[in-house]
């Protein structure tokens, strides 16, 4: 494999993996506070539609990104209302939210099908301008890509270095103990959904405004579910999610390269690999006494008597 093809894979993986990373970061925050959001796919769709619509209306892609972030947070709050306040089952609520979002996103986005936008501008990766255009063109990134890894670092810092993060992780482990420490687990979960929703919105914005640059129904292509798998694969750690996002998105690009080298593996099978690996990771980790998953993941906090 030549350097060029390797770099090509890398570039492709970065482009398609950015939205995955943002979404996964959002889900990491959710799951660290004990919530599984299967409706993430829907959150992405609504955010993408809103962001795209805003960009078309105003002509300003940055505004579109902002709108996508807000939309993501709002949709997540619906999930929060069902799961935190009404104490509904998380899985069912997530799926219901997904269906809702299919409809809402189409409603918002369909008037804009076929419209084109000013996409987020791309910039040279600093320091590469000396290389030939062949290489440097692979690494012309938009703002969101540049911010992706810093975002991961920020999430890591938030979860592991701040007082809020400590409390948030505690909720995901044991909400009763967190309550005993004088905190409000419900409020923390709402905050987590708000943050996570904004991050997912960023991911959606990248798909619609920076990458695909159009709107079609179901355009997120299952990224929401991939993100959930990615979170598990990264064992709920924001920094490991970076590697995971790259791996998950690289699979298709790898297939092309392999094909060029004469090895013909179906792209479908390659796409299975991340999931199979995730299951293996779970089995391997399940054998250890230390469970990597937040201990109260999926459990609905009932509150004290």
């Amino acid at each position, binding site marked *: 494999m030549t350097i060029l093809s390797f770099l090509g894979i890398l570039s492709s993986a970065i482009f398609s993996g950015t939205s995955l990373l943002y979404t996964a970061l959002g889900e990491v925050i959710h799951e660290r506070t004990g919530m599984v959001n299967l409706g993430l796919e829907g959150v992405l769709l609504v955010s993408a539609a809103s962001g795209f619509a805003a960009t078309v209306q105003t002509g300003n892609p940055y505004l579109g990104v902002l709108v996508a972030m807000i939309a993501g947070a709002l949709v997540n709050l619906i999930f929060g209302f069902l799961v935190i306040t009404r104490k509904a089952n998380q899985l069912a609520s997530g799926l219901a939210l997904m269906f809702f979002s299919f409809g809402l996103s189409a409603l918002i986005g369909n008037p804009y099908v076929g419209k084109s936008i000013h996409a987020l501008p791309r910039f040279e990766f600093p320091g590469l301008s000396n290389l030939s255009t062949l290489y440097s063109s692979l690494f012309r990134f938009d703002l969101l890509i540049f911010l992706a890894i810093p975002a991961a670092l920020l999430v890591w810092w938030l979860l592991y270095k701040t007082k809020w993060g400590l409390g948030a992780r505690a909720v995901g*482990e044991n909400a009763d103990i967190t309550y005993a*420490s004088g905190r409000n687990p419900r409020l923390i979960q709402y905050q987590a959904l708000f943050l996570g929703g904004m991050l997912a919105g960023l991911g959606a914005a990248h798909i619609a405004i920076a990458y695909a640059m159009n709107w079609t129904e179901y355009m997120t292509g299952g990224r929401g579910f991939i993100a959930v798998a990615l979170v598990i694969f990264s064992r709920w750690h924001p920094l490991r999610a970076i590697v995971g996002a790259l791996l998950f998105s690289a699979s298709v690009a790898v297939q092309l390269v392999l094909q060029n080298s004469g090895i013909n593996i179906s792209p479908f099978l390659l796409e299975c690999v991340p999931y199979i690996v995730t299951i293996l990771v779970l089995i391997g980790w399940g054998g250890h006494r230390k469970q990597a998953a937040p201990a109260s993941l999926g459990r609905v906090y009932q509150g004290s008597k």
Partner: protein
Amino acid sequence: MPKTSSHKKENTPLLSLDGITKSFPGVLANDSIHMDIYESEIHALLGENGAGKSTLVKILYGFYRADQGTIFLKGNAIQIKTPADARHTRIGLVFQDFSLIPAFTVAENIALFMANLSPVVNLPAIEKRIRETSDRYHLEVDPQKLVSQLSIGEQQKVEILKLLLSEARVLILDEPTRVLAPHEVNALFLTLKNLRQDGYAIVLITHKLHEVMNVADRVTVLRKGKVSGTLLRTQLSKEKLIRLMFAKSLGSSRQIAKKTPSSISPLLQLREIEIDGTDSGVSLKGINLEIYPGEIVGVAGVSGNGQKELGDVILGMERYAHGKKLLFGKDATRWSISKVRRSGVAFIPEYPLQMAVIGWLPVLHNMALTRTWLYSQWGGLRVDWKKMIHDTKSAFTRLGFEIPQLYVTVMSLSGGNLQRMTIARELLYNPRLIIASYLTRGLDVQSTLAAQQALRDARDEGGGILLISEDLEELFLLSDRLIVLMEGCIVGTFTPQQTNPIEIGHLMTGSKVPHGSIS
């Protein structure tokens, strides 16, 4: 750290509980309790299981709200509605089951409960503070270790450090020595004494007399929800305490006409059974026990000293590390629960609602659960309810119990009815070996007599019974042999004639080395 106080006792107690009353459906947990907690003092709260100790401290910590009564802080009435309020009042509680997060490090757990944690958490600084405090009070533990990797004793140290670093000045410890080895207990008491020196007010909940005698400056004894007495250190004596703890007049033991156990092979043999109790905290050590046909072996002990583990071993629930179990002469160490039961062993567990029945299924369905195959028709497609009804009725009438409504859910039964149902079910198939825990808990006089007679009948027909109970009178009444379980070991074996309730009470509360002989 609170200021080092003078050694003179303060006149106003730091915390005062007055007239605290709390009831739950069906039980009056606390009845007009009055208790004064002073600074620089270790105040022991003594009582049997179910006496109301845990409820009281949960009220103090804001988990429950008292129905009546007031809490005073230095003479001023205060309200404690949530744990946040309690922490604000600088009251700290170490639970019986620790409130530590296994996936967090020691430092993270402590930081979670710290009073003035900065928004950006500076873990190294916190770790430094932890080391300083732990050195001062001999609570050695590595702040960077994950709690899941700590031993129970170390976890307890973390719990105490947590309180200290959250600037609590009232430290409540709920049965702290339950899970400690003897040398760890000594270390703990040393720590407590140092803390007392530094002005902390310490409340120590326990059921062990020797601890009280060792360390307490003041003792409040609870019995069935009420304060039965408060003693100062100068007034303490074991006899006084036992009398305050155990209500019934412990008269002389009764002589019962009993059958001598036959010398045929035992129904149950436990040889050197050891269980590692890291989950529950109670390990069984070196258990050797035999039950012969035609005898009732009573197990005395305060609940939580290994009774559940013992029952679980016999049932087949426990994966034990060492030892051998023989049932009816065969090596049953690896038998499944189903096989154990089929061989003729019945279990009346301590908490039937959690351990024996399915709450929202009706009585009739629950009655069928231990032997579903007996009622299986058409290869399992149908259940012979007629037969089940018939068997159920005969089970109850045989015991002289009233037949309950068969189609109400078990959840809606009163405690007494539930207990009767469990007994009836377990005795239905004429088991050869019966393991009965707290048989007559919740039963009225008539049913109690009926249940006790049922046990005697089973024994007279050649059955063997292990009777686990806290009720010394019952044990003395029924047992042919009596053993005492304490911290996972059998600390004494007697026949009722050889001993008396006072001596057993001592052994149960860990205050005397036994000298009883084995019959």
